[in-house]
């Protein structure tokens, strides 16, 4: 539904700005909405009381907005050097803007804003205009503490995307990952754009495969910390250990259900690794797979009825889709001899996974119905652990493409614009993207 809305939104924009291409709309939008980016001008915010601190924050705000909108991949930011008008001086409201000055330089959209800081409280006023229709699309006021500037600006970006695409986007989501910066593999978290990586565990052991609970309040991961063997630790983001799933054998690959305090995981206590549904406290609710051989790495469909997982029941690791009501499972992938780490898209229509071969691995996406296999990475070493952004527009993954050292990258859901996301010493792996987390 939202996907349809996205397409319609992009279509509408195309109609609005360049009716001449009106007949080509299908071509533009359906295959890849990122092919045609919306040219947008983000202007320096107006300082209402003209203090030095306010003006500095105003400049900073424009930079944060520009960076955030660029990150979505939907927009093309115009160079401020080309701007004819200065709304920060002339005025930020509709009647104070000469739209032809903006459409004339190629901007189809314009963002203006104002800022006032009074005794540590920040008042923001932000507007998004359609320069062709000469209308205001979004106009909002935000109030908060000065230190929440980034979050407030991101809230506006969410409001913009909500209006244009029908989805609030990635703002307010986080990414968990593994890094060996300290010499041992620990779990880290950072903002959606790689901002402020923070170490979450300090176990000096081996901790891998973090997974976010749906509400973003819990992380589950595999760790050798407690018993010197792979167990699953369920830990609140505030740092409290909720439970440790430490059955005999291996306890790996946790995956939270889309709603509630339950997770699927692969446990081998019965002698063979099978996937189970457990409570967040570690109590087994039921067994989800039955097969001889390895079953591992579950990932839930957004409605929680089905789950993708890896099974070697056919002789090589392949992606299967299981039904949580029965133990029936259907094979999804047939090409490639080593397909692993399925990640079901938040819109439900696609499943990303890693396909490995002799000397490398690549990220693929396949329809949940097994159709439309698409390769997203190529010729770039090992590309692993795909994880969808909460809006399904981007995919975070690990790649050792540079100097054979694994780092965290992000790309569009179509494989374009692959960029490094986390810049840290050491090797990073196993990224997991949270939903948008309510504060």
């Amino acid at each position, binding site marked *: 539904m939202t996907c349809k809305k996205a397409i319609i939104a992009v279509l509408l924009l195309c109609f609005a700005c360049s009716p001449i291409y009106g007949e080509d709309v299908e071509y533009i939008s359906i295959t890849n909405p990122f092919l045609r980016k919306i040219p947008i001008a983000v202007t320096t915010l107006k300082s209402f009381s003209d203090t030095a601190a306010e003006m500095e924050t105003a400049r900073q705000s424009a930079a944060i907005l520009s960076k955030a909108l660029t990150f979505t991949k939907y927009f093309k930011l115009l160079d401020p050097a080309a701007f004819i008008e200065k709304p920060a001086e002339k005025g930020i409201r509709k009647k104070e803007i000469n739209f032809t000055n903006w459409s004339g330089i190629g901007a189809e959209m314009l963002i203006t804003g104002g800022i006032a800081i009074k005794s540590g409280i920040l008042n923001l006023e932000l507007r998004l205009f359609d320069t062709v229709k000469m209308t205001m699309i979004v106009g909002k006021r935000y109030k908060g503490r000065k230190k929440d500037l980034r979050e407030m600006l991101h809230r506006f970006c969410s409001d913009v995307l909500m209006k244009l695409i029908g989805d609030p986007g990635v703002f307010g989501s986080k990414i968990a990952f593994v890094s060996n910066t300290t010499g041992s593999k620990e779990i880290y978290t950072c903002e959606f754009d790689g901002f402020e990586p923070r170490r979450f565990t300090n176990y000096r052991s081996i901790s891998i*495969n973090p997974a976010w609970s749906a509400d973003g309040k819990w992380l589950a991961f595999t760790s050798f910390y407690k018993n010197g063997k792979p167990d699953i630790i369920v830990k609140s983001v505030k740092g409290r250990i909720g439970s440790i799933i430490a059955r005999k054998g*291996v306890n*790996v690959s946790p995956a939270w259900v889309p709603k509630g305090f339950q997770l699927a995981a692969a446990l*081998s206590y019965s002698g063979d690794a099978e996937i189970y549904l457990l409570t967040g406290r570690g109590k087994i609710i039921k067994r989800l797979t039955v097969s001889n051989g390895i079953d591992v790495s579950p990932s839930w469909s957004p409605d929680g009825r089905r789950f993708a997982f890896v099974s070697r029941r056919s002789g090589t*690791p392949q992606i299967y889709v299981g039904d949580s009501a029965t133990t029936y499972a259907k094979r999804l992938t047939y090409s490639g001899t080593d397909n692993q780490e399925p990640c079901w898209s938040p819109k439900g229509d696609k499943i990303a996974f890693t396909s490995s071969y002799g000397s490398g691995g690549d990220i693929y996406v396949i329809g949940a119905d097994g159709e439309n296999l698409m390769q997203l990475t190529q010729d770039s070493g090992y590309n692993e652990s795909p994880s969808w952004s909460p809006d399904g527009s981007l995919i975070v993954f690990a790649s050792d493409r540079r100097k054979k050292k694994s780092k965290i990258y992000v790309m569009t859901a179509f494989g374009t614009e692959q960029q490094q996301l986390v810049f840290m010493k050491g090797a990073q792996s196993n990224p997991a993207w949270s939903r948008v987390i309510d504060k």
Partner: protein
Amino acid sequence: MKKNFYFYIATALMIVGMIFTVSCGKRVDPFDTTSEVPGEAGATMDAGDEMERTAFIARDIHFEYDSYVLTDEAKEMLKGKYQWLEKNPRAVIVIQGHCDERGTNAYNLVLGEKRAKSAQNYLIDLGASPVTLSTVSFGEEQPMDPDSNEGAWAKNRRAHFVIAN
């Protein structure tokens, strides 16, 4: 009583052996062990026993890519290990399963367990006591050789034996 005596000596030797192995930072070549065993006058464990013991620890059994099936070579090696176990019934053994870096972390933890269990089951079939044989999987987390090439991968796909007591 006498048995206990041997046991203590064996333990002492084992500790010395372990310190030696660990401090070297790499495995001791079983056929190059010339060091005298210090302490214990009239020690009953001779250099031959020590060599066998070191070999038991040092020799890993190896696997094909993405496989936990024992090769003929692996089976021969396990037969050798079983002989040692027969002579050392008090030894508490942990079999570690390891993988090369290819494949995912989670899958490799499961695969490593399968490898360790293949070795364990084979030894139990030969007659070893299940009570003293446990397994743990490290997946791809502790490579012998951190390089990314076939030579390193082959070394890393292994079941490694540790004497825990």
